[in-house]
């Protein structure tokens, strides 16, 4: 079982420049925990505290918004998760 996580450009410094990371898990939350196991620097990039995403981090599952309650959403083999950073400039 493999799920692909797309890493936002501003977070790639924590993944050795990798644009995507293969993870495993039954939910988005488990997948993100597996991502952090591989790249510990991602924890502070996406979480403020355990199970609380930064307000600027958006999660999309198979190109659809996973908001709200992103972390408990189930995933299956072949799914893709995008981690996006909200923009506010104009």
């Amino acid at each position, binding site marked *: 079982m493999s799920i692909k996580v797309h890493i936002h*450009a501003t977070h790639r410094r924590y993944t050795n420049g990798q644009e995507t990371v293969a993870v495993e898990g039954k939910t988005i939350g488990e997948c993100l925990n597996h991502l952090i196991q591989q790249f510990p620097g991602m924890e502070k990039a996406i979480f403020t505290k355990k199970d609380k*995403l930064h*307000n*600027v*981090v*958006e999660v*999309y599952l198979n*190109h*659809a*918004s996973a*908001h*709200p309650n992103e972390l408990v959403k189930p995933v299956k083999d072949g799914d893709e998760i*995008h981690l*996006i*950073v*909200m*923009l*506010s*400039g*104009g």
Partner: protein
Amino acid sequence: MLTPDELKRYDRQIMIEEIGPKGQERLKKARVAIAGAGGLGSPAALYLTAAGIGTLRLIDHDLVSLSNLNRQILHGEKDIGEKKIDSARKKLKSLNRMVEIEAIDETITEANISRLMEGCDAIVDAMDNLPTRYVLNRCAIEKKIPFFHGAVRGFEGRAMTILPGKSACLRCLYRGPVAEEKFPVIGVTPAVIGSIQTTEVIKYLLGIGQLLTNRLLMYDGLEAIFTEFTVNRNPDCEHCGMLAD
């Protein structure tokens, strides 16, 4: 009715099958509000003016500064220190004297937003901060005015179109307050996103094409790719949750 001058000026776009003279007349009758005369507001105002929108209501409280000029192409060096709306009005009038420019020198707040948006057919989000975007979003929902969102940072941008009560609004994605920042940006990014917002406004006014409703379009200028994400209405959204489909 279009004048001979207008028929000549807009000839190339009237030639577009989806526009034609009737579409041009619809543009002429429209009043569009642009909230902000900065990076996104510049291309939006310039292209809506060039396209022959009847009335453009431009709202900004700021003065032109040197650090604006890498992206805010409504303004030039000689405008530094001047009110952005005055600088913008001159530029827009020199581009198309037939467009009515309603230049408003005010800071957008919850107290004045209803008055500022009164009578508008569309609202372009050209702000530089999220709190004011939410003020605009709520007003658009309450007045049922289509709202054209855009935001940028660096080489990255996003756009989404909101039809109140029919598609996801900006607040549907709300996850909590976000700290304001001095954001990095290069002018070509708001040029792309502001132009997409403007295209959406024109399509909406003419009733043509497929709008970016329930579709968040992300632009990555560095990779030169567009990515689209589906966004659905949040039934618990504090802005639009109470509106029926």
